[in-house]
């Protein structure tokens, strides 16, 4: 494999890792607050549909992204009401929301556009288009680093850079602010947070809403940046890969970024089986590469590669009075 191919591969890694990263960080807030969320997939899907549809009508990717966030927030709200207010089973709620999203998106898209559950193709300002970073053309001639900057770092949509900025932001919020301390505490020991006079439901609701916003961005990215429009089941299990990445990263933001980049790299590899074959000299079925994130996650869960211990109060509704 030559340098140019590697750069191509890394370029698509960044593009494919972005929705995983946004969804993964989304899950991080919810799960750190003690609300397990296997409904990331559904929230992304709803957001993708809303973003695709509204971007088509308004011709603005930004308005589309806002609509995506709004749609995802509605689902986050249902998740919050079910699992925080009514103390329902968080996992079952997540499963329900995924099915609801899978059906509703097609129903609505079919009603609006009548194209078999797709939105019409988006173009121009209705999509988040690639941005050329400053000096990318001038630095192109610099050996090794120049092409890397030009091919890999530059030329992505704003949401890609936003996703990586949110990694830093999440780290800062989680470990350097009062809110972050409380968030981590409420996922480990809600009774202690309650005793300190902080409302457990309010804190958890806020976390679930942040999850909604980030899933909204992830979905908007899918429909208006990575692809040109919404398509039926377009998230294709990315919500679950993000969940896997979250476990792989042991619920920590910086590690989540590396996990998503790794899983994004696998996805990029799966689109280029010829490269894999060139390196290992054996034909490896694409399905094996596609299964890698899941297999790795099972290994991590099994504790063979360090132990993944979830937030202690995760999955348990908090009951104030005993």
């Amino acid at each position: 494999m030559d340098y140019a191919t590697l750069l191509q591969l890394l370029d698509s890694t960044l593009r494919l890792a972005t929705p995983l990263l946004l969804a993964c960080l989304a899950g991080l807030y919810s799960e750190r607050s003690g609300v397990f969320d296997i409904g990331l997939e559904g929230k992304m899907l709803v957001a993708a549909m809303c973003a695709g549809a509204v971007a088509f009508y308004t011709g603005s990717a930004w308005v589309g992204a806002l609509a995506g966030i709004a749609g995802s927030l509605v689902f986050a709200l249902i998740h919050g009401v079910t699992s925080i207010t009514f103390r329902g089973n968080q996992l079952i709620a997540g499963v329900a929301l995924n099915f609801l999203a899978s059906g509703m998106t097609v129903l609505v898209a079919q009603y609006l556009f009548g194209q078999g559950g797709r939105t019409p193709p988006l173009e121009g300002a209705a999509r988040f288009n690639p941005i050329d970073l400053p000096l990318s053309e001038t630095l192109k001639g610099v050996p090794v680093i120049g092409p890397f900057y030009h091919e890999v770092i530059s030329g992505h949509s704003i949401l890609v850079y936003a996703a990586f900025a949110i990694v830093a932001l999440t780290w800062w919020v989680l470990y350097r602010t009062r809110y972050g301390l409380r968030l981590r505490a409420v996922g480990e020991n809600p009774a202690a947070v309650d005793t300190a006079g902080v409302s457990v439901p309010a804190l958890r609701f806020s976390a679930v809403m942040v999850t909604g916003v980030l899933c909204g961005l992830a979905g908007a990215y899918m429909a208006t940046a990575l692809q040109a429009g919404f398509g039926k089941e377009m998230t294709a299990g990315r919500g679950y890969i993000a969940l896997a990445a979250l476990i792989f990263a042991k619920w920590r933001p910086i590690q989540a970024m590396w996990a998503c980049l790794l899983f994004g790299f696998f996805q990029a590899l799966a689109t280029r089986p010829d490269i894999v074959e060139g390196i290992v000299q054996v034909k490896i079925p694409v399905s094996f590469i596609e299964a890698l994130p899941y297999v790795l996650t099972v290994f991590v869960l099994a504790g063979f590669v360090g132990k993944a211990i979830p937030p202690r109060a995760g999955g348990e509704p908090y009951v104030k009075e005993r």
Partner: protein
Amino acid sequence: MDRLPRWADVALVPFVSLTLAALISALVIIAIGQDPWEAIKVMVQGSVMNAYGWGYTLYYATSFMFTGLAVTVAFHAGLFNIGGEGQAQLGGLGVALVCLFLPWPHWTLALLGASLGAALFGAAWAAIPAYLQAKRGSHIVITTIMFNYIAASLMIFMLVDVLRPPGKMDPATANFPPETHLPSFNEIPGLNLVFTSGVPANVTFFIALAMAVVVWLLLWRTRLGYQIRAFGKSEPAARYAGINPTRIIMITMLISGGLAGLMAINNVMGEAERLLGNSASGAGFIGIAVALMGRNHPVGVVLAALLFGFLFQGGAELGLWTKIPIELRTVVQGLVILFTGALDMMVRMLLTRIFALFRTRKLEAA
């Protein structure tokens, strides 16, 4: 909090949940500019008003009984087996291998062999998540989700690279030999008086009913069943009573995976008669809805499976004859899981309030 009377707990709570789900579905249909009354008429007409419709409704219901029972058994041990989909796909692989590579003189023997193959493969696919839960404390929900995806990849590999007959393009196995053909309802003497045209419902339906009885016997009439339920209610108490958690988790998940795998004799052996990609087509997930709606009791599961069979066949008819997309059934499925599973507490709180209201009235009157 006041307790609900037993009849309300058994019948009224699921009924109210179901009504709420139906109401919201109706609102969804109105929102996309269609007529819910018309929709329900089409659904009923196409699924239960004639023998042909029943042939499909019962076929779907058979699959859902297996996956519903699979989820039920695991639930009783406090385990949420989300991996029915993957286990059912692996069950399909078991059926295909048994039917394709072993010579069978008669369908009865083939059915026996295929059932064993399906259950073994399904159980094997549940065994690893079970072991990881029992020994390494990995959360079974996450591992079974991961195993669904690993199963999907594995099946694509098996169908594209291993089992696909040479010269064929579509990722599927060869057709099973005619000796392994299971009698459909229209080929069973007696039933063929009712089912005159070819329908997919087949003898597997009776195996599914028998399995419901077996699961009931297992859970409420055997020592193992008692241990499973005790473990599900309280792990520390079960441990104190000398019940071995590893053993219970392993056995329960093997049974659960085996039941999910058994589904394949209905769809792979009974209907398609070859193994296709995505063979379980979501039935593994519907098992979750069926188990929740059936309140984790075999009788409830059978009834809920029939209802979902109706929903599936009716939904397909909607896709054919109206402007309502077939995906409506996914919406209804989500709503049923939401209301019967996650919002159970809300419905209960609501009903408890109403009952309390009546009680105070009675007291005042007296």
